[in-house]
């Protein structure tokens, strides 16, 4: 059975992920960005991950930028990447549907490595998301499959290792990669 993931665990994992990303960039380039923070979380607020967003409000090491739309978040991510900054997009499945053309244009055709954390709001605890009675839950993985976006499920605290793995995968393949947050974070 899936379990909810504590916000602090997700935030600590993101910090480690961005720390590693900064170190990797610093080893490769002469002029890495020099900021006090570790990286960016670009968010269009997601009810499913609201405990993470609330905890991020008190975080100094991660900068949070709330965007009006997921389309904007994708384009901001491109600018940050060009400038050498690590970032993650924290959105909801409905936001994924709303922004597929920008995902295509920026992350796929534009070859910008973008890591997505997508909340499966209303996902039933006892059902596989593909069998959900809610279309917004049911279509998320098939949509990502259609676009060829690699994805994995965060079904509990033991799965947070997938955050750095899929972040790295996005960088390696120069494109999108996503993790789906199965249950509401706590």
């Amino acid at each position, binding site marked *: 059975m899936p379990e909810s993931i504590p916000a602090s665990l997700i935030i600590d994992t993101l910090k480690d992920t961005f720390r590693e990303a900064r170190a990797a*960039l610093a080893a*490769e*380039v*002469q*002029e*890495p*960005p020099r900021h006090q923070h570790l990286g*960016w979380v670009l968010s269009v607020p997601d009810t499913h991950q609201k405990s993470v967003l609330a905890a991020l409000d008190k975080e100094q090491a991660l*900068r949070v*930028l*709330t*965007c*009006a*739309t997921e*389309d*904007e*978040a*994708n*384009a*901001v*991510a*491109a*600018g*940050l*990447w*060009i*400038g*050498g*900054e690590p970032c993650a997009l924290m959105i909801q499945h409905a936001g994924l549907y709303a922004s597929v*053309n*920008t995902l295509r*244009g*920026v992350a796929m*055709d*534009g*070859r*910008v490595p973008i890591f997505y954390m997508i909340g499966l709001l209303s996902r039933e605890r006892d059902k596989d998301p593909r069998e959900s009675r809610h279309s917004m839950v049911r279509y998320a993985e098939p949509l990502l499959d259609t676009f060829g976006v690699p994805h994995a499920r965060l079904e509990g605290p033991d799965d947070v290792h997938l955050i750095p793995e899929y972040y790295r995968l996005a960088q390696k393949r*120069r494109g999108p990669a996503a993790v789906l947050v199965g249950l509401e974070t706590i």
Partner: protein
Amino acid sequence: MAMKPEEVLRAIAAARGDAICVPTMTTAPAWRTIAPDDFSVTCVGFMGGASSLGLGLALARPDRRVLVFDGDGSLLMQLGSLATIAGAAPRNLTHLVFKNGVYHTSGSQETPGGLGVDYVLMAKGAGYRNAYAIRDLDELKRRLPAMLSEEGPVLVELYTGLAEKTPMTDRGGRPFHEQAEKLRVKLVRPR
């Protein structure tokens, strides 16, 4: 009389210094001729994204001025970006809106509201530090130094006519991914 976009771009090119520039749609063909092979990346393939792309660049590189050459039709596609930019408040971002009242690239259909839409008012309402309109090339040249150095985010509505070329009549130029990679290399400088 509306300014010619090419003349506006030439004036900007002469004054911009090392600013990163983000053209889109009808400013793209002229800009790659006026300022080839430089610190620019064209928003192509995701219409409406120029302002947000510029915001990301401005946040990543606060040491450099970022100039967005937006269109009125393009901005309307992601109008919420005005609030997002104002919320982030990048001091180094200048958002130029080339206002011609039409979707020139797709055949000059009028944009919703046409020339009656007031982007200055919208930017001020969203919370930009400054916003104003310029209708005359001499005024543009006179105000450019301040425009490129004043504390942002600032939006400048430029009353312009139609460009000589559009991305449909002049299809040259490198794809976004090549431009993005090239600019990234220039900014972070691989060992």
